[in-house]
């Protein structure tokens, strides 16, 4: 990637980045950014749009919509079951743009798409980027794509203005932390524990170390995901991170209580976002 221009402060440049703007807006209001994840097409496409809107209207600053995929190796049982059901209901990848557009048309939340890489590769990276931008999407979170393999995605035209959210983990070396922070745009996704998605009673002590390392490598915005399910955890993580990502707990709420349950849990989670004056 020697041909790829990169600057050490890529993530600090928020110009055109919808995710960065959303996180900075929360910061300006004295809050930790709240990011809610739900899979597209679960339990069906219209409901997933309504649930996304409910996230935005009840305190989520960013919405993360997942593309159901046949081999989700970073996901635990709750999200796997939801995405298997979405696929069984006939979800197709191009419907992701319908869901993104459905949410962005009715809210001003930034909407990121979380996707394993093969569906993007199959459609063609440029074609996917173009359609995502046209739908009003903010960018992509890519759990099984590391910057080393992301040449095509890193070369996606700037005109689409899409954020590139890569993951860093407790196992990430200092050198890789640096290159991953530099390749990211919008924010850096810090994996809180070594494991897959799923609610946990406590978020590992490793999370703060990962966030500190990412900040130290020049990231202006670092958000923590995996295992977060309560406002108490949001508050705890907000002490050192710029944003908190909640997935499994919201998917379980949608499964058990529909859109109202998503709204209620989002309100509860958002009570953990105000930062005490420091």
């Amino acid at each position, binding site marked *: *990637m*020697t*041909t790829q221009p990169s600057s050490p402060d890529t993530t600090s440049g928020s110009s055109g980045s919808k995710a960065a703007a959303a996180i900075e807006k929360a910061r300006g209001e004295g809050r930790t950014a709240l990011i809610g994840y739900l899979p597209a097409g679960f339990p069906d496409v219209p409901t997933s749009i309504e649930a996304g809107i409910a996230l935005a209207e009840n305190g989520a600053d960013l919405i993360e919509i997942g593309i159901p*995929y*046949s*081999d*989700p*190796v*970073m996901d*635990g*049982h709750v999200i*796997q079951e939801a995405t*298997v059901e979405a*696929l069984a209901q006939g979800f*197709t*990848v191009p419907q992701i743009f319908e869901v993104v557009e459905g949410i962005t048309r009715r809210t001003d939340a930034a909407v990121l798409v979380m996707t394993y*890489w*093969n*569906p*993007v*590769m*199959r*459609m*063609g*990276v*440029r*074609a996917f980027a173009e359609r995502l931008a046209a739908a009003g999407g903010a960018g992509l979170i890519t*759990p*099984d*794509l*590391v910057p*080393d*393999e992301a*040449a*095509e995605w890193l070369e996606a035209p700037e005109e689409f203005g899409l954020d590139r959210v*890569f*993951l*860093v*983990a*407790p*196992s*990430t*070396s200092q050198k*890789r932390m640096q290159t*991953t922070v530099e390749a990211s745009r919008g924010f850096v996704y810090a*994996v809180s524990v*070594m*494991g*897959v998605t799923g609610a946990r009673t406590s978020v590992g002590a490793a999370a703060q170390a990962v966030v500190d390392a990412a900040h130290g490598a020049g990231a202006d915005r670092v958000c923590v995901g995996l295992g977060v399910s309560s406002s108490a955890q949001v508050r705890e993580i907000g002490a050192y991170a710029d944003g908190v990502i909640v997935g499994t707990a919201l998917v379980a709420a949608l499964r058990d209580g529909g859109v109202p349950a998503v709204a209620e849990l989002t309100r509860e989670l958002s009570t953990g976002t105000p930062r005490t004056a420091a």
Partner: protein
Amino acid sequence: MTDTHQGTGPDGTGTPDPIGDGAAEAFLSHDRSLRNAPGPYFGSYGGRWMPESLIAAIDELQETFEQARADPEFTAQIAELNRNYAGRPSLLTEAKSFAEHCGGVRVFLKREDLNHTGSHKINNVLGQALLAKRMGKTRIIAETGAGQHGVASATAAALLDLECVVYMGAEDTRRQALNVARMQLLGATVIPVTNGSQTLKDAINDALRDWVANVDTTHYLLGTAAGAHPFPAMVRFFHEVIGEEAREQILEQTGRLPDAVCACVGGGSNAIGIFHGFLDDPSVALYGFEAGGEGVETGRHAATITLGRPGVLHGARSYLMQDEDGQTMESHSISAGLDYPGVGPEHAYLADIGRAHYEPITDAEAMEAFKVLSRSEGIIPAIETAHALAGAMKIGRRLAADLGPDERPSDRVVIVSLSGRGDKDVATAAGYFDLLPDDSAEQEIAEEGEQL
């Protein structure tokens, strides 16, 4: 094509895709050796399409492997285990009666079925289990389809005092109940996988999820020459002994190189192991036989190279059975060991440059070859291996049909990788050939086996 990906070199710089710049021609003119390809890329295939959480682990594995392969103590350890534990070198047996079904060409069987645990799988598990020890890991995890790799992994773990957990599709644990018991007798824990399609690919997904959570103590002992770098090059390295022995043995027995080498291809580990010995011998044609299932026209098959498209799955870019959305499709084969929708990236490369040729063999063709070998040679092959035998019958006949005026069929020589023995498949085969009484317990197992 929108889905082609330019390979990125190991130094992080973009390297041109060799498919377009005449790699096959360069090879044929002896400019370039295809042996010992180091990865991470084989042309535009391979790479490390993995979650960041696992990159440190595969970095550590790569480093440990590279140090080990250059360490005479390690290679001596492998050689000693191969000789005195696995039973190597395996024989090269001329199959004179089976040859009559192959157009009369001379056919030699590379007898991996005679290795300890009954297949080539032992070569790889001993090597990787030793690497796990060198890394200070105390636990190995593995995936298995039919159970061969799971049994081999459990065996290596017992020998080297490692904890062993094997992930196996729930459906396969029922079909292969005796193999589950074998693994348990060896001290392994078998976890039935109920996610997704409950097949081999889902067993790999669950093994990866386990690995992410336990990577400090655990090595993922992948069973085939696929997955993220360094697995394809590393698994091949441990299986290269098949091709090295076969090349030496055929020269000794016939005084010449073979005209063709045949192997079955699921992920492709036995095939890449035997092919490697002959990669730089342009006169030797290499044939990989994929599972054609009920016929490639039916959609119920596992002929990944024949009909797949490039994509990424389980850490590597390679040919992949996928739909228009990039979702992995379910594969079908009477052979659980070939029932995988991906294939090792080096095979994808060898196919593209034309160095190796890949063809589908249907369930029916494989079962016919299974019967022919059993009756003509007294050797019951694994159903996976039967695909290679069916392929050899076709290749032999083609060679015999294409002789010069003064040549005889016996002037042609074919080697078949007899990758495994068929004991594990007796219930399936007995059901297929209708050899069981209707009310026997085996009949029930066989009927389930037929629902593959």
